[in-house]
């Protein structure tokens, strides 16, 4: 069989390759989202204590 009849080797699909700068930006976005979600949890906790008082846990189930 001649070389011309050989099936071409499939190209390796590497998908989207991010540069170091893009990876750094994605990481900073992820950290920002994490901080916002953490801050929101803290806010809900503190407001719950403020609105319901320290006795929030002392009540019948």
């Amino acid at each position, binding site marked *: 069989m001649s070389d011309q009849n050989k099936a071409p080797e499939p190209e390796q699909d590497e998908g989207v390759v991010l540069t170091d*700068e893009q990876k750094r*930006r*994605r990481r*900073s*976005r992820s950290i920002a989202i994490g901080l916002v979600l953490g801050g929101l949890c803290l*806010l809900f906790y*503190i*407001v719950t204590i*403020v*609105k319901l008082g320290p006795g929030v846990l002392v009540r019948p189930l």
Partner: protein
Amino acid sequence: MSDVASREYDLAHAGQRPDEAPYHASVADYVALLKPRVMSLVVFTALVGIVRAPGSVHPVIAFTALLCIAIGAGASGALNMWWDADIDALMTRTRRRPVPAGRIAPSEALAFGLTLAIGSVLVLGLLVDELAAALLAFTIFFYAVVYTMWLKRWTPQNIVIGGAAGAFPPMVGWAAASGGIGLESVLLFLIIFFWTPPHFWALALYKSGDYERAGVPMLPVVAGPAETRRQILLYTLVLVPLAVSPALLGMAGIVYGVVASVSGALMLTLAVQLYRRREGVAAETAAKRLFAFSILYLFLLFAVLLIEAVVPASFGPAWFGPIWFGL
């Protein structure tokens, strides 16, 4: 490619740097979508509404209200930048914004704005007050839909009616702190409402080329500079006595009365100068001066109201009003 997809592609690649794939925004780009400078003014005026409202509010609740109002204002900014990306790309003042510069996809800006809008209204309603949440929702709707999508490209009265969106924050703050709407909060609304046209039209006078290129029917573009100067003067004539009225009605103290009178006289002087100086460098300088001073003017008014509320004993009681009337 559909029109919508084509528009999105064009916008995304309008200012893209060759070494940068689209839509890899930094955190700073998302912060820019929130229009932080506008947000700071909104937070400041809302804070004045909170501290001047009757009754007392827990500092944590006040902070939560301010946070929600700030995020709601930011959401309005993001939705505005999503819708206006096509004209932002044509104006020198706005073409570096994240969407026209190709750093954030329009659809991402839309999702970001909607998420923050819904989140801020829900949190304000759940944690602070339902009326304040309803007012915040209306404010966001008014800015993003009524002003941005409808009025801005349709009528030269865009910033007059749309100015209401910027005037609501002290009312939202007042409602968050007191659960109602008082006469003083309506006055605060009216002060910002009548301040907005002279402020923006002064800017539009020396940036009219930008607006003309983008096809935005700002008053100087549609009616000409002379009519714009006349209307700036008329709105300033309404604004100045309105700004003094909290002192006249006994709602604010003597310091506010003096500051509002003196700074109001200066504002009026600059508006008259702008009305008279119609040619060349002097005309442009007059417009820039009025624009710059209008920011200081509003800041002074609200700063004194804030200080009076925080340290009332130092600034005289509310009986100043009756004295002015000679009672």
